[in-house]
């Protein structure tokens, strides 16, 4: 598959009073044309920061490492001037954010906010053309009574409706890549489902690529073709969606799967969870970041970061236990093979 986005060795650091927080510590991945890639991880894993780094939407304290490379459609983004980057923002790459309640300007009617997105990149459009396009976009994302709604303000919209406005805005200029940063996290489950279905339909119609960031493996299963599992600012595992669920290739992924409540769950028992908490990113561990919480951790795990092991096409994982010379005792991957 032809790549629309190639990220190579992305490192993003925040300068804070208590030291440099290494939020993203060198990640590399590709997104194919028309592909939906999920990035999964818990809070603080670096998944949002990775996605914001692409369009440089991070606060002023963030620094992207000089050696990082982000190539979008043959163009290196890291060296672009702010002006050049603005030509890409909103036009070729657009974003949907987590919190629809605060992501729209409270003082501007929603129609105007969507219209602005068109106007910035298409100065030739007349007022009437703009209006018609906004109405069309509102129709596409199923906002009822678009004529009336576009004059209303964000506070007159429910969370789900606001996220639809955000999606309409993001799709306005038919971008090649849509980055959705937890777009359904703040919504309740029924609305979540509607929004996901809509995103998929819109993606099929437009052929845009999507990077979908979430902490919800269920959402990933529903939407994505390929998944990156992030932890401690690194990609722990990358796998096509079916392979990941059938045969997780990293102890962290296994832990995440075990934490998904089942429908026939024993309601008196405790929901399984991964003990411990994510590493302190001002002083990230030398070895595998998951080692302190890993039930299979060995001495080497804390001392040295494991290299990626290829587990097939589009599949890699970062775990010492996948090495050919890893001991078979207390090794989840060997047990699988023995079975």
């Amino acid at each position, binding site marked *: 598959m032809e790549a629309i986005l190639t990220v190579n060795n992305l490192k993003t650091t925040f300068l804070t009073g208590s030291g440099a927080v290494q939020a993203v510590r060198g990640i590399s991945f590709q997104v194919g044309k028309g592909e939906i890639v999920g990035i999964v991880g818990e809070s603080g894993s670096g998944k949002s920061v990775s996605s914001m780094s692409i369009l440089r939407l991070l606060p002023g304290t963030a620094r992207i490492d000089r050696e990082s490379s982000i190539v979008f459609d043959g163009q290196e983004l890291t060296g672009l001037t702010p*002006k050049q980057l*603005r030509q890409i923002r909103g*036009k070729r790459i657009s974003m949907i954010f987590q919190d629809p309640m605060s992501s*729209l*300007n409270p*003082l501007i009617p929603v129609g105007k906010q969507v219209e602005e997105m068109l106007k*910035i990149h298409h100065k030739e459009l007349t007022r009437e053309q703009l209006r018609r396009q906004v109405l069309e976009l509102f129709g596409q994302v199923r906002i009822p009574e678009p004529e009336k709604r576009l004059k209303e303000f964000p506070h007159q919209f429910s969370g789900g409706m606001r996220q639809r406005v955000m999606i309409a805005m993001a799709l306005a200029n038919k971008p090649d890549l849509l980055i959705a940063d937890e777009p359904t996290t703040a919504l309740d489950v029924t609305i979540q489902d509607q929004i996901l279905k809509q995103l998929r339909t819109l993606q099929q119609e437009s052929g845009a690529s999507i990077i979908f960031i979430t902490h919800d493996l269920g959402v990933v299963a529903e939407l994505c073709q390929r998944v990156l599992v992030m932890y401690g600012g690194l990609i722990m595992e990358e796998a096509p969606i079916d392979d990941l669920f059938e045969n997780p290739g990293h102890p962290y992924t296994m832990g995440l799967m075990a934490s998904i409540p089942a429908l026939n769950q024993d309601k008196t028992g405790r929901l399984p969870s991964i003990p411990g908490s994510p590493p302190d990113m001002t002083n990230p561990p030398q070895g595998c970041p998951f080692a302190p919480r890993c039930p299979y951790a060995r001495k080497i795990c804390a001392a040295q970061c494991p290299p990626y092991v290829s587990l097939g096409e589009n599949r890699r994982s970062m775990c010492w236990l996948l090495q050919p010379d890893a001991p078979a005792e207390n090794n989840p991957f060997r047990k699988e093979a023995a079975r």
Partner: protein
Amino acid sequence: MAKYFAKRVGMMILSMLAICLITFSLMHAVPGGPFTSDRKVAEEVEAALNEKYGLDKPLPVQFLSYMKGLLHGDFGPSYKYTGKTVNEFIENGFPVSGRLGFITIVFVLLASIPMGILAAVRNGKWQDMLIMAAATIGVTIPSFVIASILVYFFSYRLGWMPSYGLDSWKGYILPVVTLGGYSVSYLARLTRSSLLEVMGQDYIRTARAKGLSEFKIITRHALRNALLPVITVLGPTVANLLTGSFVVENIFAIPGLGKYFVNSVSQRDYTTIMGVTIFYAAFLMAMVLVVDVFYCLIDPRIQYE
């Protein structure tokens, strides 16, 4: 909406009544009266004067008769300046104070908001530090000190501007700077902190993601949001500046309204105390109402019921 503002005006009238009553009571609770003086005055003379102005009557009667005059727009005669009425003080003083105040307001707005914006945009850089240092000085140093320093340099040393009077446009410069110094500093700080807070909001990130330039992000998305708290403070500031300042008018010998606020109290000039207090209170309440109307126009989330 109209109903809400009608209710507000009703409340204002009630507040005004309370202000009249409280001022009247406090004023009479202070020992002495307008005709008490250091020199020995014959008791009969003082009694005759008190009788002439109705000060011998019981306080509730005095209050009612004052309020009756007030309803007809009559603030009564001054007890200290024979032949003068409080209406004359206000009619003569307010245009002077008002004009100076109006120019000061324009100066304050033109200086403080751009300063605040510049400081916020250059957050942490030398422009920010310079503006914030100046603003801190402006907030902390009292106006009479600033006035003395300005007069010393610009009038005495350099001779560029007159040290008193408003006879030419030059005469306005020092009083305006002195009068507006505090407000400029305060509002610049407020604009800066408010804008910095707004710039960290999610919808600003959305605006950036759209591909807007920083300039358009500030002018179209951030500023209106950031100016809401500034407008809140602006209401009382406008009322203060328009009604004159005792210190500034005293230093620059400006025949405004400001001096009556202090002098009338020390002289126990009852009608003048009441007059200027009511005038100021009415102004302040009107400005607060204006602020609420502005709020309503700027922020669609605010719906007055």
